[in-house]
């Protein structure tokens, strides 16, 4: 990341040029919202962070504690999920295995949801790379829900705006780790700043084989996995072995 003192993405810059006055007020109002969420260090130029998560699926036991703590952290309504754990079952006895895949918003480097948002309600925070939704701006058009290759977004049935995991910015900005990381009993989730080479996540990322989900979509996810099973039910078409996915999301298959 460059050392831009002025935190603007390209799209925001474009917007400001295009409709200076009105856009400026919008940007300013969201900037006020930002500054209340995170207070940048005084004096020296704030160092840009890049938050990421590494999930060591070998340590995951599929207990759903992360899902539950996320639900209670945000009071997520019934039937929708910011964080969930998928079970993948492969094969038939005796050649059979089961894997767990904790899922959440991938906080992509190139988030499609941001590209398609018509109001600028969803944007990638330049200071830490977290993709957020300004629930005061969102009109609930559901374009971002369509555009997310990970099905990480949903329309909150109570507030009627788009919602998704935001790496618990309210906790992270106070120096805590996200709720799911905090509650994980297997310590399968490692959260940190990958722009800091000395962070634990940087050390683990560089010393382990890791994967991301749907790399072909070009989104460059910032949620990495160790030992993730990428099997999908599509493989059943080949007829060689059986793949069963349980998403633990109400009436939702994997997209």
């Amino acid at each position: 990341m460059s050392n831009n003192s002025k935190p603007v993405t390209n799209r925001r810059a474009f917007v400001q040029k295009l409709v200076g006055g009105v856009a400026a007020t919008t940007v300013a109002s969201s900037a006020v919202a930002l500054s209340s969420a995170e207070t940048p260090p005084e004096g020296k130029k704030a160092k840009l962070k890049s938050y990421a998560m590494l999930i060591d699926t070998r340590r995951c036991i599929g207990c759903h504690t992360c899902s539950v703590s996320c639900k209670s952290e945000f009071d997520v309504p019934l039937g929708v999920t910011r964080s969930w754990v998928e079970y993948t079952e492969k094969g038939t006895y005796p050649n059979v295995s089961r894997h767990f895949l904790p899922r959440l918003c991938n906080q992509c480097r190139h988030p499609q949801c941001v590209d398609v948002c018509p109001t600028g309600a969803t944007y990638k925070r330049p200071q830490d790379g977290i993709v957020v939704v300004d629930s005061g701006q969102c009109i609930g058009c559901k374009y971002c829900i369509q555009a997310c290759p990970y099905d990480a977004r949903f329309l909150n049935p109570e507030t009627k705006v788009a919602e998704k995991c935001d790496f618990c910015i309210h906790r992270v900005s106070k120096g805590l780790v996200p709720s799911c990381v905090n509650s994980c009993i297997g310590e399968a989730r490692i959260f940190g700043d990958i722009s800091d080479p000395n962070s634990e996540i940087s050390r683990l990322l560089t010393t382990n084989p890791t994967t991301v989900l749907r790399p072909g979509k070009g989104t460059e996810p910032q949620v990495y996995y160790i030992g993730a099973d990428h099997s999908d039910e599509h493989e059943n078409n080949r007829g060689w072995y059986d793949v069963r996915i349980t998403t633990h999301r109400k009436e939702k298959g994997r997209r």
Partner: protein
Amino acid sequence: MHELTWGLPVIAYFFLAGMGAGAVTVSGSVLLRKGGFGASRFSVARCGALIGPIPVMLGTFLIVFELGQPLRAGNLFHLINLSPMSIGSWFLNIFIILSVLYAMTFMLPGSSPGDRFSQVRRGLAWVLVPLGIGVAVYTGIMLGAMPARPFWNSPILAALFTLSALSSGVASIILAGVVFRRKSKDVAIRSDYENSSYLLITSDALLIAGELLVIFLFLLFGHLTIGDIKYAMLAILPGGQMALLFWGLVVGVGLLIPLIIELFQVMPKLLHNREFKTIVSLEVAVPLAILIGGFTLRYTIVVAGQITAPTTL
């Protein structure tokens, strides 16, 4: 179980906005064109101008109440960004305002080709033709912009939606013509009517042929590639979940049958310069079939895009 994030209101909007924008675009082009339509130029343009804004506004009404926060629809106009929906909303907004003004120039008492509003009318037509194309094309771009939805992720979808919109527009003008223009006993007006019907039907046949070509390319592209798009395309290929609707209603009822009937109607004059006669039953049935096809096209495309997904995690 796949839930439809964008359901019937969005599908209906795509169809209605396309048809209305198509009708106004065709109306504007007919008005601006010298010759061809001759004396019926004004009445054909009036048909398109008067019916065009209605479906667009109806569709917009549907789409606004499809939003999670309908009262915040104004947020769309706080800025323009590069989201197809943002640009499309601006297009739609300006289009509605101008197309209503354009329709009003035809509704004023004593409106005729040479009245005092003719300059305004022509000016509006010059703006509305590209705007109407913009409204028709953006819906396809909006769907095509998402790699997460492989079925839609094709630039040619925008071309398909545009041609379908123009064709539905022509169909609605023909239908309106049957209702409002056909009755006249005056021989001169009758002959003008026949002439304009001939031109409209010929243009419609051309548009439908273009649509068939684009659908062919759309399917061919799906066939020639591998991966997500190839698998997604299975939804409308024979054996797929949407195949019957697509091939039966979209291609069969909506495109092939109207094209064949229209060609039979216009070929004698087009090739051998024989006399062209309109047939009322066909003038009603063919546009209706085209409109059914146009709606089913939006339906199959929008649903197929949402029941298919990338195949690898």
